[in-house]
């Protein structure tokens, strides 16, 4: 075999059976070499494409055939190809039976199809593009749905895992977590739970590597990994032997952290690191790396046992019923159902609420829900993904309708050719097969394009899904996904060959004679075409309404006044080492603040416990307060307020308007009168029209007891305007601000800097003055407030963008469909238009005639679309902010848009109809 032949040629030979290669291999290679040179010489790069297409089809078909022939006779009962073609000499016609002749026929059909399509590149182009976009959108979406919703979890016995959530609806808190005594109650009390594992998250600083690293740690009980059915990929996981205060502290790395931060180094096992959290530092040994699994309830870098966190060993953690900071995962007992657990848990809740009334404020509505783990992992992503998947499906439907229309039109245009074939003895099934092969070729190309588009779009989709689910990392284009695309393509092509009616036998002949050079259109086909166009327009209308509503939501959010000025504000976290004494922490923070304010280009700066719009803080949520002179209604919820600790200068830095009183000043120190500033909404709720200044409020939430915040009365010295610092899509919360120096400094840790120019330009200067105070100070999450604001609505924006993209696609496809059908209709009525203009019809009459036809189709489509949209928009109402689901503005605007596009699409065919010359029409007779 010639070694000088390209590797690709030699690879191609593998298609043939060995005996054939031995006999003809060298000849084939020589032949291929000549053919390739020749085709390149003839048509440059396109020649290359053509060469490979021809050669691949040829090799696959002949190779398959030769290999089948090598199969022993007794296995070939289905092959039945007869001795050879020579045996059929003199037959009236070939009998297409058995696989062998079928491959022959298929080869011929395939070549015919490619040649036919090459003569009609516009049709092929539109077909492949339409199907490619439809399948691409679907494949990408199905990849996401598959990765996030359908794929089984890596956990053993994943179906038996449940997640328990403790909520307090009355206090507007969807997750208040559990205290250790509560977990013990549920663990002991439920017979339908086999085991209950605890997980709580803290941020630690890890020392012992080149640089101190901040990590998010999951502090877990010894049974955590066993309950969740997860094992170690290296070393071991946390086990029962690690429970209890006497056990040595151990670290299990998450797979992600091990790979990204430790370069997947297997020698990290046995290494000792120092963990700094709240309290004294603790030495801990790395004992293993956990197998990859979706992190829940949050991204976790390392897992440690209880002994690694002093806080978790303290009596307040282990014995205080209201010290809630634990997430609970549990495994069903064999044979138990989730419903059984729910009723168990409800019974236990009732009992402990009765036994410990002091820990369960009646108005807060404490409640425990039980959810299968898989459902919980995907609960936020499910509706969004299903919405987008549904949208992609709509696009595929529109695309398929359009493709059916294209095929129909093409078949009708080829009426003549098909009639000739039929009269020459081609059976209906042979014609059908030819059309099928043509469609298969196109559908195959469309599916390939779709896969390419899906692969390109997948990165975007993963980033998008990561906002809603921890399983986003599992999204990948894989076997099943490819199968879906392929199935869609095959189903589409089979469908398209069944749509058109075919000529047959005498019918074909008579149609041929009757039509001469003209083609005729049956009223059935015409109706089908029109129905398809109406369906496309209706479906597009629904998608456009969805996109319109989301765009209006986006517009609304961009106009929402957050209550503060987001321009030119730099934000960052400067987490403090909690091991230091509070006074040292406080003076270090104040020194940093002082230095930052002194920087040129800094207008103002402040410390805060909460970076607006960042959506993340340990101390968020509504905390219980007492308002002097305000008695909550019996059984009703007690007063609550959002907890914020801010330094003097906070309101000025953010540009929050002070409506009454004063902002905090440097004399609001521990020994001075304890003061607060409350938000406008809170003032109105508890003081109505009365002046709130001088009134007194106390933080009374049980959670503050562990963090050194007393229940003493604090005097209201100011009222600030309401802000939406928790998110632009939420209503302003009741908020109470407490001065930085009058609480322990554990809460603060974020810095806001208002600059006179571009805030990004000052980042390094700010960093320098902070590091000058303490070179080991971590500085994290540096961002401008404007960027945070934009990120906080990015989910809405992405939804709107994706839906708009799909809707635009649908609009284009529908416009092409409408234009195509009208063009075809005009083409088949040329004679009529010619005659009409011959007998004196004015051009504008003919134009308006065709336009009216288009308007009628568009009108029916819009009407049906409106009905469907009215029924369907309620399913996206949860996504809408500030816009009703039946927003009349959107409906009217979309109707006008679609109408306008329809008129534009109808214009070209109408104009052509008006220009048919009478002579041409009569000459054609």
């Amino acid at each position: 075999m010639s070694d000088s032949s390209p590797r690709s040629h030699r690879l191609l030979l593998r298609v043939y059976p060995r005996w054939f290669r031995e006999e003809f291999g060298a000849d084939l290679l020589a032949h291929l070499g000549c053919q390739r040179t020749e085709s390149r010489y003839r048509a440059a790069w396109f020649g290359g494409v053509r060469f490979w297409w021809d050669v691949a089809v040829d090799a696959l078909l002949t190779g398959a055939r030769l290999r089948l022939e090598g199969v022993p006779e007794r296995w070939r009962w289905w092959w039945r190809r007869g001795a050879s073609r020579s045996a059929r000499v003199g037959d009236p016609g070939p009998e297409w039976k058995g696989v062998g002749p079928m491959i022959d026929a298929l080869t011929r059909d395939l070549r015919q199809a490619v040649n036919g399509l090459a003569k009609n590149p516009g049709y092929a182009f539109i077909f492949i593009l339409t199907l490619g976009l439809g399948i691409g959108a679907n494949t990408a979406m199905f990849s996401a749905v598959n990765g996030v919703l359908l794929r089984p979890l890596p956990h053993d016995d994943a179906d038996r895992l449940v997640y328990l959530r403790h909520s307090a609806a009355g206090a507007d808190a969807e997750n208040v977590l559990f205290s250790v005594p509560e977990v013990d109650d549920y663990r002991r009390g439920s017979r339908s739970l086999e085991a209950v594992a605890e997980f709580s998250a803290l941020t630690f600083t890890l020392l012992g590597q080149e640089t101190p690293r901040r990590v998010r740690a999951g502090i877990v009980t010894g049974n955590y990994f066993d309950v969740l059915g997860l094992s170690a990929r290296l070393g071991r996981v946390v086990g029962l032997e690690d429970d209890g205060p006497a056990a040595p502290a151990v670290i299990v790395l998450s797979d992600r952290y091990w790979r990204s931060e430790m370069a997947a180094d297997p020698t990290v096992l046995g290494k000792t690191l120092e963990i700094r959290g709240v309290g004294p530092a603790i030495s801990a040994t790395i004992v293993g790396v956990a197998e990859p699994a979706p992190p829940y309830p949050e991204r976790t870098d390392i897992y440690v046992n209880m002994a690694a966190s002093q806080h978790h060993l303290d009596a307040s953690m282990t014995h205080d019923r209201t010290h809630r900071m634990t997430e609970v995962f549990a495994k069903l007992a064999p044979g138990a159902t989730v419903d059984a657990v729910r009723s168990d848990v409800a019974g236990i809740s009732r009992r402990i609420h009765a036994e410990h009334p002091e820990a369960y404020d009646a108005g807060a509505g404490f409640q425990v829900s039980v959810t299968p783990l898989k459902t919980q992992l995907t609960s936020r992503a499910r509706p969004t993904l299903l919405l987008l998947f549904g949208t992609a499906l709509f696009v595929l439907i529109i695309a398929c309708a359009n493709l059916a229309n294209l095929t129909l039109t093409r078949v009708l245009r080829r009426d003549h050719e098909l009639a000739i074939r039929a009269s020459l003895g081609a059976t209906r099934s042979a014609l059908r097969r030819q059309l099928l092969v043509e469609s298969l070729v196109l559908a195959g190309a469309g599916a390939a394009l779709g896969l390419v588009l899906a692969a390109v779009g997948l990165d975007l989709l993963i980033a998008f899904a990561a906002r809603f689910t921890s399983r986003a990392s599992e999204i990948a284009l894989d076997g099943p996904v490819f199968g879906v695309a392929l199935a869609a393509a095959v189903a589409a092509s089979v469908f398209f060959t069944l749509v058109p009616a075919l000529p047959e036998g005498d019918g074909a002949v008579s149609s041929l004679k009757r039509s001469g050079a003209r083609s005729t259109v049956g009223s059935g086909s015409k109706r089908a075409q029109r129905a398809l166009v109406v369906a496309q327009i209706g479906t597009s209308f629904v998608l456009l309404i969805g996109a319109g509503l989301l765009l209006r939501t986006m517009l609304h959010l961009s106009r929402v006044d957050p209550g503060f000025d987001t321009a030119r504000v730099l934000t960052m976290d400067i987490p403090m080492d909690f091991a230091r004494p509070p006074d040292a922490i406080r003076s270090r923070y104040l020194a940093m603040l002082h230095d930052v304010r002194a920087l040129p280009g800094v207008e103002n700066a402040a410390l805060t416990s909460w970076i607006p719009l960042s959506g993340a803080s340990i101390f968020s949520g509504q905390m219980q307060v007492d308002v002097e002179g305000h008695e909550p209604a019996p059984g009703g919820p007690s007063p609550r307020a959002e907890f914020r600790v801010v330094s003097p200068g906070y309101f000025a830095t953010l540009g929050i308007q002070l409506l009454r009183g004063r902002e905090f000043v440097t004399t609001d120190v521990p020994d001075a009168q304890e003061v607060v500033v409350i938000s406008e909404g809170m003032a109105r709720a508890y003081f109505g029209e009365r002046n709130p200044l001088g009134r007194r409020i106390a933080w009374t939430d049980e959670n503050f007891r562990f963090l050194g915040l007393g229940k003493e009365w604090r005097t209201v010295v100011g009222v600030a305007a309401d802000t939406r610092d928790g998110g632009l899509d939420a209503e302003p919360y009741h908020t109470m601000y407490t001065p930085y120096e009058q609480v322990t400094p554990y809460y603060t840790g974020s810095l806001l800097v208002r600059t006179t120019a571009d805030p990004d330009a000052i980042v390094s200067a700010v960093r320098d003055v902070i590091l000058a105070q303490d070179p080991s100070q971590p500085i994290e999450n540096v961002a401008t407030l404007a960027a945070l604001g934009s990120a906080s609505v990015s989910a809405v924006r992405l939804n709107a963008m994706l839906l708009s993209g799909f809707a635009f696609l649908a609009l284009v496809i529908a416009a092409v469909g409408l234009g195509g059908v009208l063009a075809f209709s005009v083409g088949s009525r040329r004679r009529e238009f010619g005659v009409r203009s011959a007998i004196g019809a004015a051009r504008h009459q003919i134009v308006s005639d065709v336009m009216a036809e288009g308007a009628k189709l568009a009108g029916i489509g819009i009407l049906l679309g409106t009905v469907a949209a009215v029924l369907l928009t309620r399913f996206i109402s949860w996504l809408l902010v500030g816009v009703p689901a039946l927003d009349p503005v959107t409906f009217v605007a979309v109707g006008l848009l679609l109408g306008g596009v329809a008129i534009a699409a109808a214009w070209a065919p109408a104009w052509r109809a008006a220009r048919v010359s009478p002579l041409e029409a009569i000459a054609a007779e």
Partner: protein
Amino acid sequence: MEERTEGAVLLGAGTLYAGLQRMARDGLIEETDPPEDAGEVEPGSRWRFYTITRPGREALEGEVARLESDLEAARGIVHRPA
């Protein structure tokens, strides 16, 4: 082949050699030595020579006859007066 049919019939390499192999197996053609008028055949070159056998010729004539009768039938349909 391509020249003779003015490009209307293009044979892929696989089709060509598979066809040759099948025809040889069925005894329609057989491989021969180079004919006298083939000129100097370089050693190692990829030329192969086949000759048609008697059964092969009979099969060919039969096939031509079948095609002619098909064509006749088709002409009859197309040219039949309306």
